[in-house]
């Protein structure tokens, strides 16, 4: 093990500092990266929220002209892109980062530097997308970017194509990383059926990412090639098929919506049992349903194209598969409800958000099923009724779950509790503001209000106006609520009440270690003998199924015979940050059709890769152990 010191004198050395900004810039620690994801998401959420504020201000009354059509179209496009790709997905990634290693009893992810790489690519991809505002206008072709509209230069959608591909690289790298981590780094004894549901849902989500991202990458490359390099993929003038783009986009797009909801479902499945003081009702069914949703989710994509140029047989087939997906989702809903049934519920803030999740998501899910009634989908499609549906599942679902997760794991990260009082204010205003904003959209949509329209036409009839006004008022409530959340967050980081190591009487492994989590996560890697391992270390069940606490100290110490280990942690590295900067020239090259920039970007990425490879080997990195005994003779043979 001492041989590693020899290696330290390599090409550039590795960064040291344990503190200060440098430590953050070069970190490969999954916990720090998770925290960076979280704060970056906050900024993008504020941007996306501000954009939605502009949307709602414009639509508060009929025939308003606060924003021109040109600006409005950019704003709603960027709102959609921001919320989907720069808020919900990376917020899930923040949880993956922080929690996956902790929940499976590992010290880091499988590829720590790749993990840092993912973060920086995400950040720079986001900055790249937003730089378009300064460079002649943001993309304005909607978040689905239908061709051939988006191949038109005035749509600025080259930024969308290049930007999303960059962000996609981040997600793909992260997906591979997390899949390998979950499959290959579980603590001894943690079999698949002992994994926490959150881990299961993360695994499914990352497989969805793994298989869905390449599809949109292709769609975006084609779009980019059409828009900038004169290709003809979707150009009807030469026989290109615009519907092909729609198929490719939604082949990705639908799995994508489950990518956004499954992590939240995992989080809720962790919080509910803790809040109800009862194990998850039907663990196997919840896990299986999650996997089924992921799988079926690949086979329903054309339900976004019911009014497109597809025929009756396809419409019927996709209607059926779409309806069918309600079955596994329903299983989860009822299992969650029955987790609460017969429990002793403690209404902590995370619990409130989880209950809010079940309740609000069900509304969005049910309106989803009404979309699958194809003959009537022709009325709903591209109206505010759809906008209502997807905000109920995305905001009422994904965001409620993820925010519940923030409250729940905040003590884990900081060792402090968030204010429960402010948390409850946040929850109730959030719930109110959310329903006020999106509830009325069901009505205005059915009354004929189309989406993606820059002005609310007065001729739609008086009723629509009042619904829009309510929606716009809702955003005011939401903004206040978000500020309460933000204040709570900052105040609790600064001066929150110490939480102790296990504030919720939790069930899973991450609470086994001290809070805040020490650098190496676990002093000794735990050996797992049960699902909900940590809970079983605290309680036993009597014959009637009643739980009784195990007296302190009497617990059978599973890890007693484990020897103290020599702990290797991944070293920090400059290269993920340095290398990913290369995506800027690469991206701008793709946007402006400049092969020099593309070349510079690629060269930069390659050189960065070399820096990465040549960097002195560290113990415990995603590389071969340097302390592997060298085979005498073999080395000599090399020269």
């Amino acid at each position: 093990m001492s041989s590693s010191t020899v290696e330290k004198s390599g090409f550039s050395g590795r960064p040291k500092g344990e503190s200060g900004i440098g430590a953050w810039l070069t970190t490969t620690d999954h916990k720090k990266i998770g925290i960076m994801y979280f704060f970056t998401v906050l900024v993008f959420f504020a941007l996306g929220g501000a954009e939605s504020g502009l949307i709602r201000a414009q639509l508060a009354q009929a025939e308003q002209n606060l924003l021109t059509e040109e600006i409005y179209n950019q704003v709603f496009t960027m709102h959609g892109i921001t919320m989907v790709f720069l808020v919900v997905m990376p917020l899930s990634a923040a949880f993956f980062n922080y929690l996956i290693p902790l929940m499976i009893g590992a010290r880091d992810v499988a590829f720590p530097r790749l993990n840092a790489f993912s973060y920086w690519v995400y950040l720079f991809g986001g900055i790249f997308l937003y730089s378009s505002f300064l460079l002649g206008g943001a993309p304005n072709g909607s978040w689905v970017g239908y061709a051939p509209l988006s191949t038109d230069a005035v749509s600025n959608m080259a930024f969308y194509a290049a930007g999303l591909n960059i962000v996609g690289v981040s997600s793909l790298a992260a997906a591979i990383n997390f899949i390998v981590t979950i499959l290959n780094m579980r603590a001894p004894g943690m079999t698949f059926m002992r994994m926490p549901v959150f881990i299961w849902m993360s695994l499914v989500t990352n497989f969805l990412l793994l298989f869905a991202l390449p599809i949109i990458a292709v769609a975006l490359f084609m779009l980019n090639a059409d828009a900038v390099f004169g290709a003809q993929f979707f150009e009807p003038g030469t026989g290109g098929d615009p519907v092909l783009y729609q198929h490719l986009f939604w082949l990705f797009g639908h799995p994508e919506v489950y990518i956004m909801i499954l992590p939240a479902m995992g989080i809720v499945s962790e919080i509910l049992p803790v809040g109800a003081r009862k194990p998850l009702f039907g663990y196997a069914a919840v896990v299986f349903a999650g996997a089924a949703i992921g799988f079926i989710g690949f086979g329903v994509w054309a339900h976004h194209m019911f009014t497109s140029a597809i025929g009756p047989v396809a419409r019927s087939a996709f209607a059926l598969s779409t309806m069918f997906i309600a079955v596994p989702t329903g299983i989860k809903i009822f299992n969650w409800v029955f987790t609460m049934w017969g429990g002793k519920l403690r209404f902590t803030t995370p619990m409130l958000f989880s209950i809010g999740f079940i309740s609000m998501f069900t509304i969005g899910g049910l309106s989803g099923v009404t979309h699958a009634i194809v003959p009537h989908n022709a009325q709903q499609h591209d109206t505010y009724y759809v906008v209502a549906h997807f905000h109920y599942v995305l905001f009422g679902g994904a965001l409620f779950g993820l925010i519940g997760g923030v409250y729940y794991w905040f003590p884990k990260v900081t060792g402090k509790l968030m204010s429960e009082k402010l948390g409850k204010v946040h929850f109730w205003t959030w719930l109110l503001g959310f329903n006020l904003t999106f509830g009325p959209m069901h009505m205005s949509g059915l009354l004929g209000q189309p989406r993606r329209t820059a002005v609310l036409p007065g001729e739609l009839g008086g009723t629509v106006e009042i619904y829009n006004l309510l929606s716009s008022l809702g955003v005011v409530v939401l903004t206040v609520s978000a500020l309460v959340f933000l204040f709570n967050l900052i105040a609790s980081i600064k001066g929150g009440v110490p939480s102790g190591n296990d504030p919720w009487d939790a069930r899973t492994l991450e609470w086994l270690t001290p809070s805040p989590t020490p650098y190496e996560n676990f002093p000794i890697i735990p050996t797992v003998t049960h699902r909900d391992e940590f809970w079983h270390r605290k309680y036993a069940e009597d014959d009637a199924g009643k739980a009784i606490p195990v007296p302190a100290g009497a617990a059978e110490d599973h890890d007693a015979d484990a020897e103290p280990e020599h702990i290797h942690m991944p070293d920090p590295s400059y290269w993920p940050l340095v290398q990913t900067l290369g995506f800027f020239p690469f991206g701008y090259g793709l946007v402006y059709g400049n092969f020099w920039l593309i070349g510079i970007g690629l060269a930069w990425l390659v050189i960065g890769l070399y820096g990465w490879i040549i960097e002195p080997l560290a113990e415990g990195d995603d590389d071969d152990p340097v302390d592997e005994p060298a085979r005498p003779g073999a080395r000599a043979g090399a020269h």
Partner: protein
Amino acid sequence: MSSTDAPEQASSTDEHDDHHPTPRQYVNIAVVLAVLTALEVSTYFLDFGVIAIPLLVILMVVKFLYVAGWFMHLKFDSRVFGRMMYTGLFLALGLYALAIIVILFDSATIA
């Protein structure tokens, strides 16, 4: 960490090297691949009639399996690897076949 014994303990690297093929076997496989390729190309010069296309597909699959099985060691390595790859392969085949069928045979234009 090497002291903890995981339940699904693995064979060490050196162990599974043992049942890796020899260079001679690799060369044999390559010869087979070369012959198959020659057969493929011959369909261009000779007229195989209706069997040409099925034949080409079969040859392609066989070559695929040979390279994956021998050169990529799928035959000898953990089944997990193969599962990863075939999941992607079959998902791609299924999804794109479905999409192509929808586009070619059930576009609204025809209805």
